[in-house]
């Protein structure tokens, strides 16, 4: 899987590259529209992460070019502006997703994988980890052949963990992903704990070969037993 990150902030670029490479993606980078145009012209990417504010122009222009040339790469807009206009314009121009800075890497990871899945499987997609299979269309989870009954939030949590297998998932990132942005200032995220507890119980009862491990004070990690 090849990913192109177009981002002019070197630190940000390094962090994203570093994180995605650990997910075994091939990551290329560009720091300007000019450089990005060169790379897009030569290579094909599965997903492009596009910053809107670049030194030599607006990333949305690049997006227009891509769509005019009928280049089918998946595009996720990454913007520090967090304005609804940018978001709507970007999505109208054919971007697959929009992510406002600052974001958690786990969130970026989940979004990238969602875009890749949608493109590769044309909708019909499943994630298989160990003996657990998550069906994203049916919103069902099977352990071996038995269906696991999860509520909507438990499903979202499990899916988020599956996208970030073996990675540290910060509980803030998890809360924002599952409960929405406006939960972000809620009193401690301890309430997440009860949901995790339920999910763990259900997984262990079904003998899933997965475990959600707590990382002291920070968050959780999904590991294959």
């Amino acid at each position, binding site marked *: 899987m090849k990913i192109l990150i177009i981002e002019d902030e070197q630190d940000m670029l390094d962090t994203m590259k570093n994180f995605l490479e650990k997910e075994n993606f091939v990551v290329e980078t560009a720091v300007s529209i000019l450089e990005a145009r060169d790379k897009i012209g030569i290579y094909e990417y599965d997903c492009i992460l596009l910053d809107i504010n670049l030194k030599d122009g607006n990333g949305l222009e690049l997006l227009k070019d891509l769509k005019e040339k009928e280049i089918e790469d998946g595009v996720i807009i990454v913007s*520090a502006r967090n304005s609804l206009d940018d978001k709507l314009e970007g999505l109208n121009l054919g971007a697959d997703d929009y992510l406002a800075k600052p974001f958690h*890497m786990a969130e970026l990871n989940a979004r990238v994988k969602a875009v890749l899945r949608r493109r590769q499987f044309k909708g019909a997609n499943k994630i298989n980890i160990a003996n657990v299979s998550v069906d994203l269309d049916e919103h069902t989870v099977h352990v071996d052949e038995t269906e696991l009954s999860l509520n909507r939030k438990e499903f979202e949590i499990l899916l988020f963990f599956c996208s970030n297998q073996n990675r540290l998932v910060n509980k803030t990132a998890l809360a924002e992903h599952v409960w929405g942005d*406006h939960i972000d*200032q809620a*009193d401690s995220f301890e309430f997440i704990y*009860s949901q995790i507890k339920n999910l763990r119980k259900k997984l262990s009862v079904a003998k899933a070969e997965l475990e959600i491990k707590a990382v002291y004070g920070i968050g959780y990690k999904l590991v294959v037993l």
Partner: protein
Amino acid sequence: MKLQNYTTSYFAGVLLVLLSIWAVIFYLEMLDEIYDSLDDGLENQKMLVIQRAKEQTDILNKPEFDDGSYTIKKVSPNYGLQFKDTYRDTLMYMQNEDDFEPVRMLESVFKLDNSYYKIKIVTSMVEEDDLIEDLLFSLIMLYLGLIVSILLLNNFILKKIWNPFYLLLNQLKDFRIDKDKTITTSPSKIDEFNLLNKRIEQMLGKSVESYNSQKQFIENAAHELQTPLAISINKLELLVENNNLTEDQIAMIASALNNLEGLTRMNKSLLLLSKIENSQYDDDETVNLAEISKELIEDFQDLATHKGMKINFVEAGSLNISMNRQLARVLISNLFKNAIIHGAEENTIEVKVSNDKFSVSNAGRTEALNPDKIFSRFQSIRTSKRSNGIGLAISKAITERYNLNLNYEFTGRHNFYITR
């Protein structure tokens, strides 16, 4: 009280006192002049009567006034020598008025052919009560006339003179530092007003400038902090993924992460607040607060359940407001968050929507919060580390942006309500 009325009332008061004093003096002066003139007339008449008596001795014995205006009566020389002329006011029956009317009477003694005669001469005089009445009436007319003239003067002339002042005042009344509206003044013939206009324009210009630069600073600062914060958090997360860390080291990183995340949240809030104040949310639509509440209650259910709280939703009407949907969600969710974070555990949160009011109430501390401070930034009671004290300030800013009212009330429970 308006400036005009204020001066008019002063004039009215001063005039009332001045006119009263003036009226008394005028009355006394006039009366004095009348008596003087009457007394002169009486003296003259006396001399005429005495002259006549020298020729017509029969009038020397005339004890009654009858149809004349005098009486003459012989008196002893002893009495006559001692007698001094007196003028006095007395009453006399007047046939035309069928009443006793005041008259002025001169009593005098004269000597004729070695005999002394006492003469009384009367002349009718002004009726004092009538005089006072007339005078009072005229005075009231004068007074009213003066007041009316002052009012007219005030309304036409003073208004014209003070016009630049009122123009300025009207603009100041509607002036809001966060709106892009400046004050415009027109030059006046009066130096003081020109100076006032100039100074106010300068002062407001300075205030708007510093307000804007402060706003800009907060926004820029918050904006610039975003990326470094995110990068720091991400790097620390990557560090934790490193498997050779001891538990102590992880705990330290966790603490750093928690603090950085607190900072990120506060930063986000400040950014949101300045965006609201900069009116960067302008796509308004009709928003049904009851619907949004239902959605958000769903989202907050887990958090509430975790604290053993129950959210009761009462829909007694529908409250539709034209505003930005995203801001409406922020507004309501901040009130919910506030209620859940500060509310007493194992209690209920009441959410009520009626046609003109949206309210959220929770049980909590038993004393009322200070309603003047509660909506200011960083004023929250720090019962929780996760609360940064900006939530309510954001809600307030949103309601102000849409000319809604957000108020607090303590009725045993803490009540926050929005009204139009």
